[in-house]
């Protein structure tokens, strides 16, 4: 993986993703009256970036409030959009900061199948070991074939110990054992991987509840963080994912992966609007270094094609 600074990496990804959006804005607004028709087109552009119907309508209504029937230019419209989106995202842009009072700070990583949970754990391990923390990982996905081996490879890559059991073993029991060992070995951070599960499968969701429950037997406050990993290519179903996972296992923050593709991740705006859960980081590749802090302004600018202009200068 190339070692560019994170911003250019993000904008490179988002640039690909937004060129359609921004291209459309350009053709829309080379000075034009912001009438109903123009607003409808603008709304469609936001919908096409996965912001969803409701959030898109709200943003457009805000933009129309001060500019309706006025002549507007392309740059102005982009700035206005970015401002609106930034305002929604700023309150949720919060990094994950392990509390040193917890030994270890326990992070449970959850989400639907294939979103990037295991990879994100690997990236977090890289990030926090680089900060000097002692990190342990627990291979709580005992279901998917070779999921344990996958995490073990991440353990080697990041020089972090991995607690693993046998395929098919009880995930809660494994998590319990891992927390015991992490305490014994005086770890700062314990990252617990889990099997992917669709939020509409209540028996699988109950398993997550059980993991939280047994962890509390050792540390009543554990897990201290519950990260829900979302895939940027996911559409409006992300709303249902957040809603149900939050109910079942008290999600404390989100990570959005795969923003290096053309998916725009606009659903994050809708999520911030509706749930106000912190967004800790974003994934922009498959490598250990491809994790970035979530920055509201930059995300908004990239989404609206403003940073693209800067990058082209």
């Amino acid at each position, binding site marked *: 993986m190339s070692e560019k600074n994170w911003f250019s990496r993000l904008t490179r990804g988002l640039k690909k993703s937004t060129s359609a959006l921004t291209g459309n804005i350009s053709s829309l607004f080379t000075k034009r009256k912001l009438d109903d028709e123009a607003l409808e087109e603008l709304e469609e552009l936001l919908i096409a970036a996965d912001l969803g119907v409701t959030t898109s309508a709200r943003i457009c209504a805000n933009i129309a409030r001060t500019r309706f029937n006025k002549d507007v230019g392309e740059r102005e419209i982009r700035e206005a959009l970015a401002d609106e989106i930034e305002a929604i995202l700023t309150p949720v842009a919060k990094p994950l900061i392990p509390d040193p009072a917890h030994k270890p700070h326990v992070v449970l990583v959850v989400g*639907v*199948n*294939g*979103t990037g949970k295991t990879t994100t754990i690997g990236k977090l391990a890289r990030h926090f070991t680089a900060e000097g923390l002692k990190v342990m990982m627990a291979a709580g996905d005992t279901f998917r074939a070779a999921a344990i*081996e*996958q995490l073990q490879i991440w353990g080697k890559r990041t020089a972090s110990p991995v607690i693993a059991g046998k395929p098919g073993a009880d995930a809660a029991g494994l998590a319990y054992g891992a927390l015991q060992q992490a305490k014994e070995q005086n770890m700062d951070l314990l990252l617990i991987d889990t099997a992917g599960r669709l939020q*509409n499968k209540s028996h699988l969701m109950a398993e997550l509840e059980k993991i939280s429950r047994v962890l509390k037997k050792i540390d009543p406050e554990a897990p201290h963080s519950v990260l829900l990993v979302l895939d940027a*290519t996911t559409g409006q179903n992300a709303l249902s994912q957040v809603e149900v996972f939050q109910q079942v296992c008290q999600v404390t923050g989100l990570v959005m992966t795969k923003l290096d593709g053309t*998916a725009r991740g606009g659903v994050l705006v809708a999520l911030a609007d509706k749930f106000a859960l912190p967004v800790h980081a974003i994934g922009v590749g498959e490598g250990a270094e491809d994790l970035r802090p979530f920055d509201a302004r930059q995300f908004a600018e990239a989404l609206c094609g403003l940073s693209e202009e800067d990058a082209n200068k």
Partner: protein
Amino acid sequence: MFESLSNRLGEVFERLRKRGALNESDVDEALREVRIALLEADVSLPVVKKFIKGVREKAVGQEVLRSVTPGQMVIKIVHDHLVETLGAESVALNLSAVPPVAVMMVGLQGSGKTTSTAKIAKWLQTKERKKVLMASLDVQRPAAQEQLKVLGEQAGVATLPIVPGQMPVEIAKRAMQAARLQGMDVVLLDTAGRLHVDEALMAEIAAVKKVAEPQEILLVADALTGQDAVNVASRFHERVTLTGIMLTRIDGDGRGGAALSMRAVTGCPIKMLGTGEGLDDIEPFHPDRIASRILGMGDVVSLVEKAAETMEKEEADRLAAKVAKGRFDLEDLRDQLRQMQKMGGLEGMMGLLPGAQKVKKQMAAANIDPKLLSRQEAIINSMTPRERRNPKLINASRKRRIASGSGTSIPEVNRVLKQWKQMSVMMKKVKKLGKKGMMRAGLEGILPRM
């Protein structure tokens, strides 16, 4: 979570109580709601626009059947158009080539390629008695090759031994060679997940395609995908020419609009559905099931069924009236043909009416042309009113005239006449059955034997 389409439309149709043909403004108002429903179901915007245009053309001027609300009528038209766009029939994997036939699985990271590879392999091996070899070409994701190996053990399907450090094109060559030596029928090539904008990795699958010459290239895509579905599908299609789509995570509660998007932009059939994490969780594609989901789950299906029921009942009432009248001529037959065409033609109607599955199969077996209805109507149109009212008049020379007038053939004219005769006979049957009995007998009882 999502408002269903029927809820959305409810309000609109409160105001549309009047009867007659659907006019432009009724349709437009309804379609605004349909558009939002589709967007909320994650159908990609350009696809939504095209779809709405198609529905509009069909719906404007459409006669609203008595005892069906305009809302039901529009939903039915939308539903039918959706099924049509999704591909009315499921298309099987095409494995007819000199063995070993290669099948390549491609897609984004985490879409379900490896799991789907094992599912298809198990399906082919157990249901179709094929000798199958699986090979993982994934040198990107940690333990990906190991994953396929474990799945192979679980499914009882052979996997190509792992050679650490070997690159995808070499693995593909080795897989084809091994399959040839071992007399395999099918080789499933699982590939690494890749972004459609990753030039190097897209070039890699193009290179694999060259050496393995796969008969099928399936895009494995997540049913939960959002607006990006059009980009993904079209870029993969441009690059390697897909032959089909396998849609995974259909067991989730997503509305699955990606199915419509991907089908629409590539024109490729959706061939298989992944319905769970287990290796037996695979099903052939059913457009109906996806269509009703996209429109807002089960209640649309029941609405469509209700509409169909009322239509059937109307038909039954009309027929009963004919019976009471004691006559049934070719003009009545023509009315019926027209009615049937309005209801989506033979195919559309067969798909809707209860108890029609058997008839539908018979139709498929008999190779019945869906254009049949309009040709039959043309034949009747070419008759004189006298002939229509008294079909017994139609002799050989009249038949010749009718055939040439309608651009058909004498055997076809004969078939219409035969159908009329059967219908007349059926009228008597109906009279005997009574109205209730006919409802129970359903379409099978009404339609002449094919």
